[in-house]
């Protein structure tokens, strides 16, 4: 089925899309400022799961890299694993919603959705979840690890969904989320207009440095 016939969807079916979008809207809810729904995080995720055509944006923002060789193989393997987790996770979320509220997840009230999602973070998995959070730098620790040890295909459905919501909310808009840079506006991040600005070296953070410079030599009194 073409993208057009599919309502713009590349991977999810209509029900899966609606379920993921509703769950993401509880993970970063809309209040006086936009949340995951307005940022387009469902579109971000749908694109990611569509294959290996949207893994890496070209660094100047002019489209996406074509993966080849071992790298392409690794990404096919990873995306396949993630697709399976989402298909099963969405079914599980609906199963739990029906068992508890007699309706699919998308038909629940926001409070009921929160309850259903909280149940997905079920206590017997709490320890695994915490370990996963440590492993991904998501949830803890407080400061980014100086390296990233994310192996997201090891995550369960819910932490995976929470991670991808966050990624879709804050990553560069080129990936289909962070629409109108709503994620960056929320937190006060004065990012580049586009990847091209950073790539060309036109983006500078100098205005956000200290107004007053430290004169180290003078203040320490023992210059070279």
């Amino acid at each position, binding site marked *: 089925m073409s993208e057009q016939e599919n309502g713009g969807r590349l991977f999810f079916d209509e029900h899966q899309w609606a379920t993921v979008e509703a769950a993401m809207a509880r993970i970063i809810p809309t209040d006086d400022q936009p949340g995951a729904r307005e940022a387009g995080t469902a579109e971000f995720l749908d694109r990611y799961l569509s294959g290996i055509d949207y893994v890496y944006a070209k660094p100047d923002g002019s489209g996406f890299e074509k993966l080849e060789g071992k790298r392409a193989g690794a990404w096919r393997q990873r995306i396949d694993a993630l697709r399976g987790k989402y298909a099963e996770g969405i079914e599980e979320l609906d199963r739990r919603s029906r068992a508890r509220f007699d309706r699919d997840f998308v038909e629940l009230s926001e409070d009921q959705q929160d309850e259903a999602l909280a149940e997905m973070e079920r206590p017997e998995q709490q320890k695994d979840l915490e370990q996963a959070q440590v492993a991904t730098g998501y949830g803890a620790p407080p400061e980014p690890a100086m390296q990233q040890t994310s192996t997201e295909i090891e995550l369960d459905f819910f932490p995976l969904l929470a991670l991808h919501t966050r990624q879709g909310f804050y990553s560069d808009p080129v990936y289909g989320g962070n629409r109108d840079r709503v994620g960056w506006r929320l937190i006060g991040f004065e990012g580049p207009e586009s990847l091209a600005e*950073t790539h060309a070296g036109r983006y500078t953070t100098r205005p956000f440095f200290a107004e007053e410079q430290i004169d180290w*030599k003078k203040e320490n009194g023992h210059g070279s």
Partner: protein
Amino acid sequence: MARKPKPEKVDVCIIGAGASGGTAAKVLTESGVNVVALERGPYRKKESFGGDELANVNRYNLWPDPILNPRTYRGSNDEEPREELFCPVPQMVGGGTVHWQGWLPRFTENDFRLKTVAGEVPGTTLVDWPISYEDLEPYYTKVEWAFGVSGQAGANKYESPRSKGYPTPPMPTTNYARKFHEGCNELGYDSFPTPMAALSEPYNGRPATALSAFAQQHGDPTGTRSSALSVWVPQALVTGRYDLRPDCYVHEITTDEHGRAKSAIYQDADGDFIEQEAAVFMLGCGAVESARLLLLSRSGRFPNGLANGSDLVGRNATFHEYSAAVGVFDDPIHAWAGGGYVAASSFEFYEHDDSRGFVGGSHIAAAGVGIPLPINWSLPDRPAWGAEAKRMDREYYDHSFAVGMVLHDMPQHDNRVELDDTVEDAWGLPVARITLNPHENDLAMGRWVIDRNAEILDAAGATKTYRVYPERVTGNCSHQHSTTRMGDDPDTSVLNRYCQAHEVDNLFVVDGGPFPTATGANPTLTIMANAWRVAEHVVRQRGSGRATTTAGKGA
């Protein structure tokens, strides 16, 4: 499979084109030595880098992909190893310097003699280095001036004597550097601008470094930061004596009938196996991968791995766990603006002090939050989702910064790198298995330093602080050392003081592997200074016609 002609034997074959291999290549080629460099990863130019956290950090654009390059980890010999991307480093020309933070403090005199200063530490293999600060000082200066390091000589009152200042002044002051400095002043602590692999003003034909939020963990699209990719590799290439071969994965170093290193067997980008002979081999793969390559290079003469008669290859591994206290402030800090990169430091807790109840000390420094976005940032009491999580992102992200530490972990005999029994990488080779259990001294130092860091944040006016104590070692800052220790005694070290294998006189290791101890400071400046020193030694030996036949004590 296509047959390719065997390449000609070369003077020196360097495995790896990162910080250490790049430095050695520059020094050797500029001295007239012909070098072949075999680099496992690609040769990526600056045009291939961009400000994209999702790609660079979460999707392994720069990090090794764990599906292709896994490692395994276990906490002790009794545990079942599990796959974990322990202490990865980018596998490409430039190595870790492609995406690093680039903090380049010098070690101090006592780093080279900590055992003498602090005495025996039970359960550790703490030793003095076979070389001193004075031995390295000229090379620190050479690297700082050739590489391009910004800093302020004398600003760190605990710095050891230096023969020359820095080529460019410190980088501009960030808000978080300023807060850190104020907190230190309040408590009477010395602080100084972190010496950095960046240029505050044009230098040596290069422009000043661009200030971007996308620095730490991102490649540099402007090529204005100092890195092996932007400095050493071009300097070596321009000599015409640097045959850099990217995408060439060395599987084994072979030996001849005399037990000397004969050739590197590597697989090129087409998958073809090629044999490269050389008079001298230098390993600069990082302490984990250099040890792994030696262990992979087994023969009748070296059944436990090349140059491993001592059984010390891979042992005493140290990894500098990074941890931090985080402070939240009323006023905006914009800590993302420095790219995690432009900072201030203190050596107030660097030197050993018996009264603290642990051995050693740590470089502490102000650091940004996010890399630079909150994709990979959080706080201990931030829920994983929901309205409260969103509130904390909104109110804390732009209002917080960290004071981080470099944990000076103690060397232990059983903390080691080995070959895994079952897991192979995408090239069919057994992966590195790390066995590591932190020493009580490591944990005690971590708790003590994090408490001091939190007090600095309090003194700087934080309304809330978080203390994150290192509880286990995960290799989270890519620093790695001591798997091929240098020393004067072949029974207790793998390499001599010139980083030449005791057992194989034409084999050198120039990464962090030769460091006998981890020290409490970021290692790369010292790795590069030491690689320069070793490369000069190789040039001298070659010039004297001794052809590196003087392995052994005091060579």
